[in-house]
């Protein structure tokens, strides 16, 4: 079985073999020597080709959150079947893409700096959210057009509450 592991923009490929209980993992055709032991509470002691690591690994839906020596990664693992499915979906999609900006943190909407229908450039301020006593500026992730605003100024919002809908400028 082929497995694809995506970390940020990079992708790693592994082969998993099970010959009647003799299970192993290969990468680039070479067999990996490994030992992963659970220490409880999402902590693992990994020895991989002789190198030792403490791994913090938590699964959330289809994403693994991984901490190693102070570095943090999000990882997606797919096998061949899952991958083909996903690519099918991707290619069938077309036209400008819609995106809903959600509140990254709970807080108070201090100011909305755009209006519905406005075109904004990448990085342009959309609204100011106050939380933990600081003003946090929510910016446009790409050049796009504002299609809908879901909140009002002075409104308290929960985490992940939709704030603004955008449509990408072609």
């Amino acid at each position, binding site marked *: 079985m082929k*497995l694809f*592991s*995506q*970390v*940020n923009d*990079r992708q*790693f490929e*592994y082969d*998993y073999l099970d010959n009647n*209980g003799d*299970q192993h*993992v290969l*990468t680039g055709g070479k067999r*990996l020597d*490994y030992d*992963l032991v659970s220490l409880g*509470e*999402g*902590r*693992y002691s*990994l020895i*991989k080709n002789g*190198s030792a*690591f*403490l*791994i*913090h*690994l*938590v*699964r959330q839906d289809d994403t*693994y959150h*991984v*901490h*190693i*020596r*102070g*570095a*943090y*990664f999000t*990882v*997606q*693992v797919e096998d061949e079947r899952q991958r083909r499915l996903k690519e099918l979906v991707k290619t069938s999609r077309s036209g400008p893409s819609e995106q809903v900006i959600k509140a*990254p*943190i*709970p*807080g108070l909407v201090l100011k909305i700096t755009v209006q519905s229908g406005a075109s904004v450039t990448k990085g342009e301020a959309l609204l100011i959210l106050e*939380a*933990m*006593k*600081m*003003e*946090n500026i929510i910016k446009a992730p790409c050049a796009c057009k504002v299609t809908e605003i879901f909140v009002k100024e002075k409104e308290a919002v929960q985490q992940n509450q939709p704030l603004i809908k955008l449509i990408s400028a072609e």
Partner: protein
Amino acid sequence: MFKKILVANRGEIAIRIMRTCREMGIKSVAVFSDIDRSSPFVYHADEACALGGTTSQESYLQWQKIISIARRSGAGAIHPGYGFLSENAAFAEAVQKSGLVFIGPPPEAIRLMGNKTAARKLMINHGVPTVPGTEDAIENVDEARKIALEIGYPILIKAAAGGGGKGMRLVENDAQFEEAMISAGREAGAAFGDATVYIEKFVEEPRHIEFQILADNHGRTVHLGERECSIQRRHQKVVEEAPSSLLDKKLRHEMGQAAVKAAEACGYRGAGTIEFLVDKHRRFYFLEMNTRLQVEHPVTEWVTGLDLVAEQIRIAAGLPMTPEQNIEQFWGHAVECRLYAENPKNDFAPSPGKILFLKSADGPGIREDSGITQGSEISLYYDPLISKLIAWGSDRGQAIRRMLRALREYEILGIHTTIPFLIRVMENRDFNRGTFTTKFIEEHRNELFRQDESLAEVAAFSAVLQELKEKNRVVFKNGGNGRLKTSNWKVIHRKKALRTR
């Protein structure tokens, strides 16, 4: 000496103060909001009393309530920590009027140094160098704009009542001026209840270097040397150290003398900090005085061997301070990193949540001043500072290497923290060389926010193994596996080994 002290604060600094109280044989009283009932500082105290409320306004800023709890509990003094009521002259006055001791400077000194323009005037009168700018607060935008043009850009807009970067804006040119002044005023108004601002020349290649001051009631005012706090993000200190890599003996002596002069000018008592900017020509300017204990006080403690909270308490009780003279030589080098519950990958957005697992770093040369434990809830209501890591080394290099080691060892799950970002700072070449300014983070943005790719493959592989494990478990359940037998065998083998030893 006091028999009991009320600590009018929360989190790590409340615990820090209670620890010194315990070591001095003084009982401590905690006050807490509804949100903080389960916070560790509550059980670090000898006594605890509910304030009620959730926001700061409803709880830690309720001074009448706090004073009445202090009186009821039989406390002899109130320690305000930093933030909240620590630089509130009216509170200090009310504490004194109620017959208690305020562990901090006289209200007049707070008032004088709290008003940035008044402090500036005082410094100019006493010959302490200051940054060129307006001496009075400005309200009219057009007038302010004219002055800014006179001083010459870049300029800084600062809240007259402020501190800690709130209500502060850097303006690079005339076009940015108006919006910056309005937003600074708004932020200042919200934070301090006073929207007035003033204007200052922006210092070239500035380094933030501050001097720790102690003044007692026996006629002695000394400095305990400097701390460098140039590593700042949005004017919030992130990394601090003592000594500064910039200062030599001569400059330390000159700045120390100026700091003592500044403290004497306002009739200071207790522990305080004179903040300076040093420019690329090694000229120094008085920036402001913090009339309280600083977040970064532990680095001074480590290189001087003093307990600054104990000194504050001693001085407040009328006793002479411990150090007999200015301290211009240090024992080694100390670095502090502030751990915030923030996500550096998401522009340092607050990261509230529950601490699911916590194992802090230990070993040689590491101190931690923490406000949390496993199980703690980090709320959105208060400052996101959760802990401070301090590393000591016989020289700066060793202190940094130890800090790096500690940051990588530190285990905290459930929330995001600034640890990955702090690791980048400690690894940075310019930081290690000591060649940086307060613009360090801005200038090294690309490098500091780069993802560490060296462990990406290990992360990818771990996730694959876990995925396989989860899938296999299902298969094994139906098909049966040999694991149980193996472990049984191991137990027998172990028993045998014990027997034949």
